[in-house]
């Protein structure tokens, strides 16, 4: 058996980090994933006595990979094909295979003809836009995306989707609101698959590192999770950059700074490997010039407020101020001195959903933080802790006092 190690040139790796992989690079990633599938299939075949049902299927099918990872077998559904400008996207709309539940979201029941038609119409229109205005991204998508698994919507979200590292090229997604949402969602999820395949070849982060802030999540995330978000939103930001309308401008303004901030934060930390540093440096270099793009001031203001508000809510939700630090602040308040520098620490996880806490008067109206507390004092968890410790002192007075130490 003759085999060679996978390699990418510096140029190819940099382009990959910038979210602009060449066709050759995508071919390498596909072969890497096929290698992974084959090795998993080998392991399963050596474990079982009967020939599994998936044995006859092409091993680079992402759902076959899921069957292999589960050590079991599968049925066969319908294909959607979208064609525009000489570029074709062919995906399987997978609504029956029981293994689809392993993609991380609750599968929708088998589609009705009307639901299937909605997917088909949205995909055709989304593909038209992608090919016409975002051809390189469309080429990447055509090279990666193979399966869409419809999932149940989240009542609190406009749309949800997910990608599994065990199923390169498969996307779990709730029914899209419109072609625009489908285009953005598929671009986003395609990036996750590309990054997962990259991670198969290169260690990008040091395992076991601390968790921290991610602009796209309510919970603390490991470095690789932050990188996943930044890489996925890099594609969404690039998409919004070239799309017309105020909604696209808002998303572009919001995500460009979120992506740049997340990448810069990763580079400032210790969790990236040397390959991860190169990858993330390329990512940051791609998005940084977009920060200078002109955006209508009111849209930019709203985008900045949305980012600041998310960060403030995240801090209140996930950080706490140790009692001894609260005591120091209270003592300084009563002594009439300037507040000592204090910052929150991550709450200890105790198994229950952290999103249920905390509660308190400051959280009764979390939106208030967006416009008032945050710009003058970023540590919203400190404000919250002190408003509890000094219930008779107006919040704006506490905020002003805390700001005097920044």
């Amino acid at each position, binding site marked *: *058996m003759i*085999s*060679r*190690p*996978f*390699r990418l040139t510096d140029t190819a790796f940099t382009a990959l980090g910038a979210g602009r992989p060449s066709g050759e690079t995508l071919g390498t990633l*596909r*072969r*890497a994933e*096929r*290698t*992974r599938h*084959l*090795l*998993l*299939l*080998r*392991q399963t*075949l*050596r474990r079982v006595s009967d020939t599994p049902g998936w*044995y006859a299927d092409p*091993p*680079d099918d992402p759902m076959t990979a899921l069957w292999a990872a589960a050590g079991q077998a599968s049925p066969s559904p319908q294909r959607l094909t979208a064609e525009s400008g000489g570029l074709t996207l062919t995906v399987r709309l997978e609504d029956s295979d029981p293994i689809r539940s392993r*993609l*991380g*979201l609750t599968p929708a029941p088998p589609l009705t003809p009307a639901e299937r038609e909605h997917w088909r119409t949205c995909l055709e229109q989304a593909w038209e836009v992608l090919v016409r205005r975002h051809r390189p991204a469309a080429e990447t998508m055509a090279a990666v995306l193979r399966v869409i698994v419809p999932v149940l919507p*989240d009542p*609190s*979200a*406009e*749309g*949800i*989707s*997910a*990608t*599994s*590292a*065990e199923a390169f090229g498969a996307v779990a997604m709730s029914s899209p609101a419109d072609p625009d*949402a489908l285009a*953005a*969602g598929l671009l*986003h*999820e395609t990036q*996750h698959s590309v*990054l*997962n395949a990259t*991670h*198969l*070849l290169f*260690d990008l*982060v040091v*395992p076991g590192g601390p968790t921290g802030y991610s602009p*796209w999540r309510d919970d603390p995330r*490991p470095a*690789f*999770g932050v990188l*996943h978000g930044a890489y*996925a939103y890099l594609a969404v930001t690039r998409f919004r950059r070239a799309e017309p309308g105020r909604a696209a401008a808002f998303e572009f303004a919001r995500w460009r700074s979120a992506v740049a901030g997340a990448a810069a934060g990763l580079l400032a930390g210790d969790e990236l490997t040397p390959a991860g540093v190169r990858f993330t440096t390329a990512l940051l270099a791609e998005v940084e010039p977009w920060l200078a793009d002109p955006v209508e001031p009111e849209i930019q203001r709203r985008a900045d407020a949305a980012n600041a508000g*998310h960060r403030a809510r995240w801090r209140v939700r996930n950080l706490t101020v140790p009692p001894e630090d609260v005591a120091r602040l209270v003592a300084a308040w009563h002594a009439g001195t300037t507040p000592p520098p204090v910052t929150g620490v991550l709450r200890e996880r105790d198994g229950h959903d952290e999103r249920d806490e905390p509660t308190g008067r400051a959280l009764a109206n979390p939106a208030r933080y967006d416009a008032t507390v945050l710009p003058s004092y970023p540590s919203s968890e400190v404000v919250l802790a002190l408003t509890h410790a000094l219930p008779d002192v107006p919040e704006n007075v506490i905020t002003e006092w805390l700001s005097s130490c920044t």
Partner: protein
Amino acid sequence: MLIDLSAVPLADLVEQDDSVLARALRRVTEEATRGEPIAGFNSAL
């Protein structure tokens, strides 16, 4: 670094059992699978 086995017939891989294969297996089943398998997107953000 993972080796390229994408063109190797599955039947050959099933028969093969050496250190090169063991290293590749370790890469796909241990090293590259550390962390969460699912990455997600919630447009309600």
